[in-house]
């Protein structure tokens, strides 16, 4: 259990303000946010590189706020690997055990074990400069894992890699997490990594945590325009909510489950929307007539853009699209359940 309790830290242009997170044992926790959100400072503060200006950090019940980095037993892996260039892969992986003055035979055994887990046993005698990005990242992960840390911190571990290597290392991270049951905190600005890896996600912005939840929660129920924009919610509308559970958006009245009065945003997943050429029962909630603006195939899916006075994006499977028999210019009915329309108060307009 890793608890970050109201931690603040100011480092010139980068800050953390009053960050609280509770990360469970063996949890794969992703911190997501744009560049400059304070993600790396958060990680370096957890690792003990910086001491917080305020707040506490607890690891498995132990208050480590004032414990130096070397005694925290927290592993750190950076985007740019930070393998020591003057040491071989084997010496890099064994570096930490050597700091602890472990027996050389023991070190060798541990290094080999760790290298095997990362599939880099054949690279042990090489210098980092001769390795590919993916190989270097594996060596950096092995170097952290060999210490059997209580938590592993990954700073954008996939961002510097090419697409193919990124895919395979992503699978590898999931496998390592599975195999070791390690508590992992992984920061990234890439939402794609979230669904494959994360048990839970925190969204950061300007040094603050703005939302925490499962990927599904974040994706379906963003709590602000920033989160909605950042995770790429396609149908996001501003409107005026009433206490009766409707939201007026343009000339439409959208029925929602949670009644919120005042200025609100409504987010609807494009795959939660039904399209039909034939009229849908009038008594159904959230049935709107519109016209198809355009159709964009996207792999096995088709994105359909419908104008009902406000522009909707609807995602259909290719089969669903063909069965609907629709084409640009057609008039269609569009329907979604009130429970699919996620609504939250939206304060002053701001850029996502």
């Amino acid at each position, binding site marked *: 259990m890793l608890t970050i309790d109201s931690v603040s830290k100011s480092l010139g242009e980068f800050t953390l303000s009053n960050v609280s997170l509770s990360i469970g044992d063996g949890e794969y926790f992703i911190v997501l946010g744009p560049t400059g959100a304070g993600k790396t400072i958060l990680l370096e503060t957890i690792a003990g*590189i910086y001491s917080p200006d305020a707040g506490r950090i607890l690891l498995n019940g132990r208050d480590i706020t004032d414990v130096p*980095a*070397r005694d925290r037993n927290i*592993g*750190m892996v950076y985007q740019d690997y930070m393998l*020591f*260039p003057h040491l071989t892969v084997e010496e890099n992986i064994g*570096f*930490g055990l050597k700091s602890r003055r472990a027996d050389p035979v023991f070190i060798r055994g541990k290094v080999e074990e760790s290298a095997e887990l990362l599939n880099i046993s054949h690279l042990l005698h090489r210098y980092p400069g001769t390795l590919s990005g993916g190989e270097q990242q594996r060596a950096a992960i092995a*170097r952290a894992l060999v210490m059997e840390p209580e938590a592993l911190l990954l700073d954008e571990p996939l961002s510097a890699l090419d697409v193919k290597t990124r895919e395979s290392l992503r699978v590898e991270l999931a496998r390592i997490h599975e195999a070791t049951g390690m508590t992992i905190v992984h920061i990234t600005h890439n939402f794609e990594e979230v669904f494959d890896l994360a048990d839970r996600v925190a969204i950061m912005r300007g040094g603050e945590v703005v939302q925490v939840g499962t990927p599904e929660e974040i994706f379906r129920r963003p709590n602000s325009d920033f989160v909605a924009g950042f995770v790429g919610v396609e149908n996001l509308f501003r409107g005026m909510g009433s206490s009766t559970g409707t939201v007026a958006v343009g000339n439409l009245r959208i029925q929602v489950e949670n009644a919120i009065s005042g200025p609100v945003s409504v987010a609807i997943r494009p795959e939660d929307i039904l399209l039909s050429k034939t009229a849908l029962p009038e008594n159904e909630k959230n049935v709107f007539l519109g016209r198809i603006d355009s159709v964009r195939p996207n792999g096995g899916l088709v994105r359909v853009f419908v104008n009902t006075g406000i522009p909707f994006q609807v995602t259909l499977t290719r089969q669903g699209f063909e069965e609907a028999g629709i084409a640009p210019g057609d008039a269609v009915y569009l329907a979604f359940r009130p429970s699919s329309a996620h609504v939250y108060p939206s304060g002053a307009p701001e850029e996502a």
Partner: protein
Amino acid sequence: MNLKKPSFFRAATITVALLIAIFILLVILGVVTHSPMGVFIESLFSEEIQFAVRLSIITSVISTLLCILVAVPVAYALARYSFPGKTVMNMLMDIPMALPPLVAGVGLLLFFGVSPIGKSLAAAGLTVVFTPLGIIVAQFFVNLPYMLRVTRATFQSVNPRYEYVAKTLGCTDAQAFWRVTLPMSSNGLLAGSVITWSKGIGEFGAALMLAGATRMKTETLPLSLFLNMSIGKLEYAISAATILIMISIVSLYVFERYGGATHVY
């Protein structure tokens, strides 16, 4: 750039470069080919030149070691930490480099000759003025900024995250420095040491002021060149000059070879 159509501008700039290169080469060749080989060899093995070579090597090696010893911690502090007065300190430490060496020498002479600190050092047996020790002090004072600048730039080029990782792997600040930053800086430190040593061996102005120019006592190679020139023993002067030229060229080569590699990390 169009290589097929020769431009006047291109031709003009290259011509100037070529003329300057030839000029420099002629000046150097003029020195090294001045004495007949026999005379050169004979003066090279004369007692006086041998003494100057020995004294120059001993003083410059010691002053370089002192420079390294001081520059490494100072450069590290300036490269890694922020503390009050850092900007002023940075400027102060560059001053000896900008000063004419003769002025640095006068300052050193006053400090070690008449100041209370200098007098108490002399009373304790550390006589700096007009001794070989003064040569070391003069070389150290004038050349420290060079060592400092190269070392600071080298440390700055090592991403501090290497040290962060080392700390998460159980290192103290000092261990992270010894096991990671220092070895990663070895090329830069070598380059800095060589240039410092080469400048030390050629140090004249400050050494002349502080240590004086006493034949067979404080006579380093540049002082030997000066002394022999002034009394017309041209072949001795030429020998000293030739040795200094060789040292400069080799040092420059080593500096370019290893100093250029410091940006790798």
